[in-house]
């Protein structure tokens, strides 16, 4: 539609311009330049933020950054290994919850769901997707930190991340499952294969790429979440694999380092941000390119 206009509409030469036409053409030009400059501004902002993260974060990156724990106050060096380990282990547990739950929901909605219940599920997923993440943090705090487990813990953090991931996984996967042609289902059913084996053996494998996309997108989103972790996993200075107690995470580490008054910690914060942005950026780039190439 963009190509329709300019090319096809022949313009009268300026010497024969109608009264007022000059002004109208000028307004048109000005509007176009303003609109183009807003798009330019949007792109410039991204460039600006990312280049700062790269320039200020790169000096922090060395081997020790990935292999050592934080040094005590005032001492230079050290790294963010505990935060990386914490983020990865919480993401692992969150995936173990969110992927089956999200897949199950998506399968239900696309293969079985009809009527009021399916509507209610979609509605609930929409609401969960739009929920401020800090509210999810408060919820998990009041459920797990206050009640079931009784203290700040990696498990609580993982559950909060899982609640953020589930709507993303289920919505992406549902959409993809709907694109699987019915002929495949019918072919399988006609061979006498039960419905559940048709779904597991034919529908899901066909939609494999889309399922992976959904999972990657949800991981990219959950990996950068900070606010809910602040209220659930809290943070930890030391290397820990114990998910039943407070555990460090990359985003919370960035926050703590940034607001602390030490220059070296600020550099570490930028370094951690660089790591986070690179990993998350790569995840979304890969999934976007993959989805652009083929819808299924």
């Amino acid at each position, binding site marked *: *539609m*963009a*190509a*329709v*206009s*300019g090319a*096809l509409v022949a313009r009268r030469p300026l010497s024969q311009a109608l009264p007022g036409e000059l002004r*109208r053409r000028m*307004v*048109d030009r000005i509007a176009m330049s*303003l*609109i183009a400059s*807003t*798009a330019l*501004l*949007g*792109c410039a*902002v991204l460039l600006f*933020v990312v280049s*700062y*993260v790269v320039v*200020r974060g790169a000096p922090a990156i060395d081997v020790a950054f990935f292999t050592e724990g934080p040094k005590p106050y005032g001492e230079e060096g050290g790294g963010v290994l505990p935060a990386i380990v914490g983020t990865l282990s919480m993401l692992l547990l969150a995936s173990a919850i969110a992927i*089956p*739950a999200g*897949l*199950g929901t998506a*399968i*239900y909605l696309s293969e*079985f769901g009809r009527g009021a*219940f399916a509507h209610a*599920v979609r509605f*609930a997923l*929409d609401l*969960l997707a*739009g*929920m*401020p993440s*800090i509210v*999810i943090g*408060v919820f998990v705090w*009041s*459920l797990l930190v206050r009640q079931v487990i009784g203290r700040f813990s990696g498990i609580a953090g993982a559950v909060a991340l899982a609640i953020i991931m*589930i709507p993303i996984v289920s*919505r992406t996967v549902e959409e993809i499952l709907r694109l699987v042609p019915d002929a495949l289902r019918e072919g399988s059913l006609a061979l006498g294969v*039960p*419905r*559940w*084996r048709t779904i597991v053996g034919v529908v899901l494998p066909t939609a494999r790429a889309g399922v992976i996309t959904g999972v990657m997108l949800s991981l990219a989103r959950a990996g*950068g*979440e900070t*606010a809910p972790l602040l*209220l659930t996993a809290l943070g930890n200075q030391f290397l820990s694999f114990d998910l039943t107690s407070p555990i460090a995470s990359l985003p919370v580490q*960035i*926050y703590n380092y*940034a607001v602390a008054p030490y220059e070296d910690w600020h550099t570490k914060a930028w370094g951690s941000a660089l790591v*986070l*942005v690179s990993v*998350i*950026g790569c995840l979304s780039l890969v999934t*976007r390119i993959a989805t652009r190439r083929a819808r299924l």
Partner: protein
Amino acid sequence: MSGRGDRCFELTAAGAAAAAIATLGALALLLLVYSWPSIARYGLSFFTTTDWDPVAERFGAAHFVYGTVATSIVALLLATPVGVGAALFIGEYAPLRLAEPVSFVVELLAVIPSIVYGLWGFFVLAPFMRSSVEPALRDSVGQVPIVGTLFSGPIVGKDLLVAGVILAIMILPTVTAISREVLRAVPDTQREGMLALGATKWEAIRHAVLPYARGGIAGALGLGLARALGETMAVTMVVGNSSSRITGSLFTPGYTMSSAIANQFTEAAKAIHFAALVEVALVLLLVATIINLFARLLVSRFASGPVGA
């Protein structure tokens, strides 16, 4: 035999789906239960007073609400022209080989985690606003009567205005992406009709495309607003987190609802302090949900297909 397997499978899937509803229900219920002591004790005064004193056990959250509203409005005012403009560029002006990369880059803004915006705002944007933008605003617009109060007072660099600017950047991809979807749903006959009458491209956009897309664009802005209301980390790092007064100036360091929760939650010692903070979360939940639903309705009436927020 296969019938039983099928039923088991369907029930399992339905169970997973029901878990989503259960989570949402438990969320609303628990927040209500935990905030009840505060709701019962402070009632409406929670929203009308600005006295937030955990020691004296007096809790009024009006200034948190004000901070959230003020920063969100600033964010919308800044993000609307840029976001809708970028969407117009992508949808109406740019040739395909330019539109694709531009929309891709703008959407990448949504991928950057909130905490990274916070870091950038804390070390780059806030000092820049303090040294350049805010003094300039105070010396120009600040001198105009009435409007000037918005840009008056001492400049600290961590205030409602800076938080609004960060939020504007963060909601830009939402506004752009959804406006673009909406513009895509405007029938080409709208444009062709205007152009055939001799209108310039801008006139076609101004008089045929934008009025047609008005509802959907309002929905896009609503989804951006919902995101701005709940945004926590980036705001927490640049909003100042100090004043308990409501002043007319955007240069006042303030709190938003979400930054108050993030700041005080792990430090709260008294049960009633927790209850008050959970009540703030409950209010946030209600407001964000209502705006989200309303915006979704506007957009879905317009552009078919699911809406990515």
